[in-house]
């Protein structure tokens, strides 16, 4: 059985970039590559949850960090995992300066599109790590700005 690539987003609660990381992870694991990726919650790694640590330790990880403190990357390493790629949302934003994120509970349109752009970068990396990439459920390049993006609570 092929191991899924684990996606570990930052769980940042104080910055829009954290929400972009979270949303981007959902786009990858639910929309674009549900069969070849698995989302791991950072809080379980903080607690040292055995299953989460085992999942991380036995697979390639792609971390999505919302700020320079890089909690997701550090926690994967701390949990014995291998970080195949670490993406900083800020770097993705630098490549898409027209997509300025705002809002934390509810991302603005720029933030939603930035999450989509992040997800598309992640998908390229996932496919390179997966020996037999699964069929593309929704297409990795459907254009910026999917229908999702942040909660409206």
């Amino acid at each position, binding site marked *: 059985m092929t191991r899924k690539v684990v996606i570990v987003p930052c*769980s940042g*609660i*104080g910055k829009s970039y954290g929400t972009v990381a979270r*949303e981007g992870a959902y786009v990858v694991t639910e929309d674009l590559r549900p069969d070849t990726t698995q989302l791991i919650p*950072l809080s379980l790694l903080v607690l040292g949850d055995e299953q989460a640590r085992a999942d991380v330790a036995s697979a390639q990880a792609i971390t999505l960090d919302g700020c320079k403190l890089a*909690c997701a990357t550090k926690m994967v390493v701390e949990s014995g995992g291998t970080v195949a790629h670490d993406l900083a949302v800020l770097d993705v934003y630098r490549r898409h300066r027209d997509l300025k994120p705002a809002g*934390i*509970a509810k991302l603005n349109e720029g933030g939603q599109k930035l999450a989509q752009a992040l997800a598309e970068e992640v998908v390229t990396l996932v496919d390179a790590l997966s020996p037999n990439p699964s069929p593309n459920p929704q297409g990795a390049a459907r254009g910026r700005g999917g229908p999702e993006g942040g909660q409206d609570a």
Partner: protein
Amino acid sequence: MPDLPKKKVGIVACSGEEMAEGTVTRLAALRVLEQLRPNETVTICLPLFLAGGEGDRAFARFYPTIALDGCDKRCAARGTEMYSGKPAAGIVVTDVIQTNHLGTARRLSDAGKQAVDVVADQVAQQVDELLGVQWDRKQGQPSKEAQPAKESEAKIATCSCGSGIPIQKVQVDGQEVTLIALPLIFAQFRDAGKLPGDGTTAELMQTVKVYNPIPDGQEAAYTQAVMREYAAFYQEKN
């Protein structure tokens, strides 16, 4: 004069990405931080207790903290206690909300959004209890007799990441110990014109002990160390 942010409560949400209840904690925390009690609350990202510095790990020892968890694994409560300090209070969403129809982690249902309101109200109530504030429910604000200090209204939640709590390492009986908030306390005392010496010792140590437990039998050694450091601080800044 520098203020010690004594009158704030820390909110730590699990933010669990894989379940709707985790999203409820995240949004409820944000509701409190941004709308319900913006001037009385601060937050920090849970992973910073491991990934951050000592200042970040001092968070729950500096602020009375409410841990907000999505499930009975209680990652926020247990993680906060393991790496920072015992939370003053905790709420578990599954204890409060008796429905399995909250939606998904990515998209809350209407019931999930209602759960956010319910949990946020509970957190706000606990914030008031921790601050000793009587809330006037008719007016929707603190009652006049217990009005908290006025501050500028926050609109967007910001985390304490990176900024951390000011700390200082001091030698106590040949052992290096970390004292939380010591730089702020020293600055406050200096700005109040309190000279290093016997007249300041009791008050200074009383303030230090608000944030730092002093082990039994070591009060004298701690006092000596703190006063030595304060004398050095005072001399350097004057």
